[in-house]
């Protein structure tokens, strides 16, 4: 039996080396070590030996088995490596040879700007309030200290709708009615911004649309001052436009704030040096702001002696256009994919 074992072990390396594929090697392995393999059969025949012969045969069998397994492992490794190499060679791909590239959609420029602004204000502790686009005269004008026939109504070209009494229901001309709703529905302290769509009776041209977007902010708390307004707008300005851009306030007039101010920032194109966009002034007019008018506070049931606040607002579309160098606002609203896809996010 020892001889048989020696013979098999001696012949095995040739058989293993002759196997030219992993499959062939598997067959060789089965012939040698499988359930019906030669060594397995010899092992079954060991029962007829005396204890001493059985011990010697067992040792020889184990030794042969180990050497065969080692040889199989080496050969298998070689064969697998070769087969993978040839497979990899045939699987070569030209990664620029693409038939259908998936397309990403795009967020509207207004949405991108909206989100960016809102994120900055959330970082500053503001919540985000919204309200209806069709409003009553009360929310859009009266409560904001703009009574009917007030000359200041001329500041807004209003679109009215055929509901209720004539000229009592309108498309909001600013997001300020949301301020009234926030103050009416909630209680100070209020720290909120109101982004939204607004309407004006305006013919579309390169810089105007009858429909556009604004964001306003409102703070009502104890001891809020003009200095807080200036500081908040300065903090926002550097957070949104970058640290080198600063803000300034100039006296202005709005019926719903007093003192009122224009909110200017350093021109973002020339950083204040003067260029064509800013008319050589170094400043860009961004929007309006001021201390909430005592009449407005009274209108929403707040005591102006106890509470004070500030409000500010500016156009959102212009920021979107400025950031991307778009020179015609109408482009944003046609739904032309050749425009939309230029600004994925």
């Amino acid at each position, binding site marked *: 039996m020892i001889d048989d074992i020696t013979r098999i072990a001696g012949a095995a390396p040739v058989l293993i080396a002759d196997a030219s594929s992993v499959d062939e090697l598997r067959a060789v392995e089965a012939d040698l070590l499988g359930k019906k393999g030669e060594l397995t059969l010899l092992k079954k025949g060991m029962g007829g030996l005396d204890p001493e012969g059985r011990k010697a045969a067992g040792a020889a069998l184990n030794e042969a088995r180990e050497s065969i397994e080692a040889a199989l492992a080496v050969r298998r490794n070689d064969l697998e490596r070769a087969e993978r190499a040839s497979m990899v060679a045939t699987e070569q791909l030209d990664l620029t040879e693409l038939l259908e590239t998936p397309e990403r959609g795009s967020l509207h420029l207004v949405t991108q700007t909206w989100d960016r602004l809102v994120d900055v204000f959330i970082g500053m502790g503001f919540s985000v309030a919204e309200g209806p686009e069709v409003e009553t005269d009360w929310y859009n004008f009266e409560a904001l200290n703009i009574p009917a026939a007030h000359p200041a109504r001329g500041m807004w070209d209003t679109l009215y709708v055929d509901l209720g009494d004539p000229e009592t229901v309108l498309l909001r001309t600013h997001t300020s009615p949301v301020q009234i709703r926030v103050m009416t529905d909630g209680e100070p302290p209020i720290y909120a911004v109101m982004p939204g769509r607004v309407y004006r009776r305006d013919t579309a041209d390169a810089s105007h649309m009858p429909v556009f977007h604004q964001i306003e902010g409102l703070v009502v708390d104890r001891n809020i001052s003009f200095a807080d307004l200036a500081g908040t707008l300065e903090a926002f300005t550097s957070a949104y436009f970058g640290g080198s851009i600063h803000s300034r306030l100039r006296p202005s007039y709005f019926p719903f704030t007093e003192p009122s101010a224009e909110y200017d920032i350093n021109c973002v194109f020339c950083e204040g040096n003067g260029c064509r966009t800013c008319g050589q002034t170094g400043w860009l007019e961004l929007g309006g702001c001021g201390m909430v008018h005592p009449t407005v506070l009274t209108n929403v049931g707040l005591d102006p002696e106890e509470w*004070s606040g500030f409000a500010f607002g500016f156009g959102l579309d212009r920021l979107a256009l400025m950031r991307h160098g778009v020179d015609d606002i109408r482009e944003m609203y046609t739904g032309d994919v050749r425009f939309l896809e230029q600004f994925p996010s």
Partner: protein
Amino acid sequence: MKVLLSWLQEFAPFPSDDPVALGDVMSDLGMAVESIERIGEGLDGIVTVKVLELRKHPDADKIQLVDVDLGDGEALQICCGATNLTVGDVVPLATLGTTMPDGMEIARRKMRGEWSNGMLCSGRELALGEDHSGIYILDPSLALGTPIVEALGITPDVLFDLEINPNRPDAMSVAGVARDLAARLGLPFAIPVPTVEELAGDAGSIASVDIIDPDLCGLFHIRVIEGIKVEPSPRWISDRLTALGMRPINNVVDASNYVMLELGQPNHTYDLATVPGGALRVRWAHDGETITTLDGIERTLTGGRDGVITDASDSAIGIAGVMGGASTEISETTTTVLLECAWWQPMAIARSSKFMGLRSEASARFERGVDPAIVDLAARRLAELLAPSGARLVQGSVSADGDLSVTPAVRVRTKRVNQLLGTEIATEQIVSLLTPIGFVCSATDEVEVLSVTVPTFRPDTTNETDVIEEIARHYGYSKIVGRAPTSAHTGSLTPIQRDRRSIRQVLVGRGIHEAMPLPFLAPGDLARCGLPAEAVTVTNPLAAEESILRTSLRPGLLRAIAYNESHRTDGVSLFELGKVFALPAHGETLPDEREHLAVALAGCDARAAANIWALLAQTLGLNDVGIDQSAPPAGLHPGRSGVLRRGGEQLGEIGEIDPGVLDALGLRERVAWLQLDLGVALAAPHGEHRYHHISRYPSSDLDLAFEVDNAVAAASIEAAVRSAAGPLLVTVNLFDVFRGHPVPDGRRSLAYRLRLQAPDRTLTDEDIGGVQRSVVEALIPLGATLRG
């Protein structure tokens, strides 16, 4: 409001050397400088020349060849596009090397093959007015070769164009701007007292006024000027009017306008000869009353809205505060003028001029509120201006009072000032800020509390906050140090705001672009989309295309797809998140305003919409929403659409645009459609993604194919499978749909793969067989049979 530096300097000694710095101060005071124009600057190199000969350009129809003489007798050829020249005219020539006021440099150049040795100038090119219709023709007696500045007697000056806020009636005059500016600069300010010789007599015996409606007119003041000789104004007056944007007419009208611009008091001159007995009456107009105004237009007035000045016979001869009448207009034969300086109720004038669509320099001032204290000063100033032509002011005046309220003194607390401004301004400083602009401050019994009397030229200032704004303005906004926010408040998005961002991310990730069509529709847009026509209409649209508020996002998105198709972009995928407006619910004033999401996929069929919906439902955690195809929504393909339903609630619509609608809109491709009412969809709790324990034991798959009637929705089969499979079911997926032999017509095969798993053990064959038996049994009522 435009102001000239030289005019401002008549009220305070402003420096001339740095107009830009002066402009910055005006801006800082809230009188924003929109432009600064230097008059008479940049005119070096422009000289008088005489036209010697006019010739046709051989090669251009719109250009003439002009030979001019600079005084040396030589003919110099100029190419000129203007046609108002005749031989012998003396005109301005910009010689070679001149830099024009607008920065253009004049060089010798060829125009269509002919040399031009300079440029003949229009008034606008010389910055001497707006006229650009032709070359500026000069006095023919001028010596040739004279510099234009000398020839025209132009005095260098600076013109500031200011944006005046509605709460600054005082700044609607040169004197008012000067007062504000002088106060900030610490310069002495004074309005010169007119020197007028008064003619003996009594205006009271010549004229009279009766204020019938005191709520219309607060003050009506009349002076009479005799010895009027209507002629052109002196040059300095007409130049100043022109510079400020008013057209010179004659000395009387010009003097009237001059006083308005200078002092802010609009006034009106009547030819006394046309006013019987010099008697005027002031009242509200009668409904339908007519008057022909100075501009020659007959206007119909509205009772209670417009005010009129009438003569003794009660016929209207002027619209109060807005415009005078033609019948009493100054003419060449006028010898005596009845001069009106009045104070009209600002709201009345605002209403009247707005609804009449008639805005004048006078109404703009009256509606802000003029200074009732200067009516006689204005009259005397006007007489002073006319005196050189021989006009004389008659002694005495006629004055009638109506309702004229006086602002009571305002209590101003120093503490409140600093609380609102965030400053530390002392009471004495408040006094020194307010005094130069005419606010009279006096101490009160209370500590650090002032009693402030507001000047009559600041009717806008009526309360403490108004005064605080004045303090801030003159203190300087830029000196108020910003306080960085140190808010203890936290901000965050609301759930719906977060959901919107998720929705957008998913859709953009699927290659869909966000569009924002305008929310306006034209009549017929809804019907073309197969939608009901009832909608909220706009009262005063600028165009019919903007006359209806959308009730659906569909017309807008489909129009955008059509726009893209027409520009050769097919297969466009768009979405929109926006408001739609339905007529108000019963008893409501405002429309039923809802936020919708819509997705339109061109070149895709309804299944694409269903896939997007599946994705959105997963993202938002919207469970239990079914597609109900039993009643197809309006405007969608009847066989390929349905309603998104959660119990009894309708969340939206899904499917494909009706082929008839596609035709009506000229769309070439099919369009898959999804719309969701976000308010309804997101109102119920959603998006709670709870953790499910993942079993450590192996799972088994069970594939089952059923033959089912076409009429039975796959969703109901799946629902039945889910409920019958019991707790061992992990997932169920439809992996094959097959129609045709051997499946009979009207039926199809639906193959599902069920993945089964137990949390606590390996499944046995009995477990799997049990699931199969219950599922097959549960599907029997649906007419589904297991295929072998």
